[in-house]
């Protein structure tokens, strides 16, 4: 801006400044490719829909990428994308650079991956929570329903009002399915429980998330299962400002984000899942198909906030533990709303 000169029509200066501003605005979109070993040819890329510092869905994926780099000596790259046009452009970029494995981290990457994949047959595209299989596109589907059901058992046992809530970012099938499992878990232990479900409409607007939560709390909700990324921060804030309301964290262990209101987290061990897939691809064992990873494989689990353990009656804790054990052993299968087109392959 110092380039302004004391003459009229400085219009062009501003126009020239715009590319610079755009660069600043999109600064996280830097590709931090770090070949850890020049001889290593295994290259892995990650596209996330949001910032990797969100302490939730995206940061877990980035940790997975880092683990792939460290454990498999891979060269890795990450980029944050915003729009479907971004998805496709960056898939193409990594495909043409010869990356062997590219993760599109979310249901929303499915269509772009399918469009791009035929042009890069030597690249494996993994869509996290994706919905369809193509020759080199495989969705990685998490049994998020498993720990969601456990959270439902806990909420259904502890609710005093018999009203519990679920708040999502947008209404996408994986979120809807986990909310259904949460409701089923609560009903399994409490026939009178009622579940309110609402969606913020985006994953970023914390103030909007807070207002959704306040509306539910006013209707008597005392436990809220949130899955709204950054908008979820507003839900924690609403719980702080209300008496006797507890919230469940989602995707990563959020228990330390707001320990005063988060009773437990429904966790996907994304690093574990990412590394398993990358190892298969690197060693040539990877076969296209739906990768189902739930509590049975140790990828999803419910993590009670240690600070809350004393506040939960022993009988309820025992019920939660036994529910989790039955799910891990395969004796109990929480309901899921199927959104994957093909038949799954168990890893």
């Amino acid at each position, binding site marked *: *801006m110092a380039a*302004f000169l004391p003459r*009229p*029509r*400085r*219009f062009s*200066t*501003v*126009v020239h*400044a*715009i590319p610079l*501003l*755009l*660069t*600043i*605005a999109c*600064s*996280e979109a830097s590709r931090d490719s770090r070949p850890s070993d020049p001889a290593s040819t295994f290259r892995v890329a990650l596209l996330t829909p*949001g*910032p*990797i*510092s*969100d*302490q939730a869905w995206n940061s877990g994926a980035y940790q997975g990428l880092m683990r792939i780099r460290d454990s498999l000596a891979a060269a890795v790259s990450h980029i944050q994308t915003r729009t479907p046009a971004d998805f496709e452009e960056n898939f193409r970029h990594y495909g043409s650079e010869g990356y062997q494995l590219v993760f599109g981290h979310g249901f929303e990457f499915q269509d772009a991956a399918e469009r791009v994949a035929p042009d890069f047959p030597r690249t494996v595209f993994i869509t996290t929570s994706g919905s369809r299989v193509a020759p080199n596109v495989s969705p990685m589907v998490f049994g998020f329903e498993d720990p969601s059901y456990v959270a439902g058992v806990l909420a259904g046992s502890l609710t005093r009002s018999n009203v519990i809530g679920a708040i999502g970012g947008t*209404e996408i099938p994986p979120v809807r399915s986990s909310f259904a499992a949460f409701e089923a878990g609560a009903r399994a232990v409490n026939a009178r429980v009622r579940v*309110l*479900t*609402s*969606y913020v*409409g*985006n994953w*970023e*607007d*914390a*103030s*909007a998330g*807070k*207002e*959704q939560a*306040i*509306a*539910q*709390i*006013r*209707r008597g909700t005392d436990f809220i299962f949130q899955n709204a990324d*950054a908008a979820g*921060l*507003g839900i924690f*804030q*609403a719980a*702080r*400002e*209300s*008496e006797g309301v507890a919230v469940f964290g989602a995707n990563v262990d959020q228990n330390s984000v707001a320990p005063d209101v988060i009773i437990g987290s429904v966790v996907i061990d994304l690093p574990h899942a990412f590394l398993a897939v990358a190892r298969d691809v690197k060693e040539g064992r990877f076969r296209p198909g739906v990768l189902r990873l739930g509590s049975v494989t140790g990828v999803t689990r419910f993590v009670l906030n240690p600070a809350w353990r004393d506040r939960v009656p022993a009988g309820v804790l025992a019920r939660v533990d036994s529910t989790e054990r039955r799910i891990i052993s395969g004796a109990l299968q929480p309901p899921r709303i199927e959104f994957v087109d093909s038949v799954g392959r168990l890893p």
Partner: protein
Amino acid sequence: MTEIAAFIAQTIRIAIPYLFAASGGVVAERAGVVSLTLEGFMLTGAFAATLGSFYSGSPWIGVLCGIGGGLLFGLIHAVASIRYRADQIVTGIAINLLAVGLTRFFLLMAFDSSSNSPRVPGFGITGDAASLTGALLRNPLVWLGLMAIPAVAWLVHYTPFGLRVRAVGEHPAAAETLGVPVKRVRYLAVALSGILAGLGGVYLALDQHQFTDSMTAGRGFIALAAIIFGRWEPVRAGLACLLFAAAETLQIQLQGMQGIPSQFVQMIPYVLTIVAVGGFVARSTPPAALGKTED
């Protein structure tokens, strides 16, 4: 009765950022400067308030910092568009992008996160966030926000400064010949819009006790729509803000109901905005010199 009180409380909470931003935008627009920048002013105000509150431990220092942040960006916009007569749409977009980029950059610098700040002292926590009294009593910025529109209406219509603002927005050449310092009036008007819109951002951040990346989420543009819908009259713009906030409240309240798809409910505020602006604004006339760079 409690349903109505809760509806009003939520409408007010949602409307406060709009009211701040729209009251500021009205002044700048009436002086002839396009207020595409409200979004950027709000975001800067929100971030500066978070920084101030974090480092001082006092939300009131945060408010002052937020005012400073909005004012700083207001002055940048004023210098570019008034002194150097840059196209106001272009500088407006540039200011908004600059605000997104700079807040993200300093978020990373100050708090080592590109997503959100740590918790900072904010305004009043009570155990009763949902009630009408909870909404009105716990946060002094609510009162300030509700007073912003009447104050600006008085300023524009009943003070010598307001008369000058309207004059330079309608016919700057005529105002000039009568001895009105056109540029100085516009500078003041844009600076004031920066302060007021900045306060809208301050409200968001201190209500959340936290800054989150791009937390204004388009609220500055909704405020601009309210100004246009209100035909550049402060009071009508304020009512438009309340209307938009009420539509959002309706959306939120309807979500609890079973059987209505969430996507459909979420459309309501946008549909209402299009109907309102499209249906009523056709007849409205902006200030004659709005956005004109030649004077």
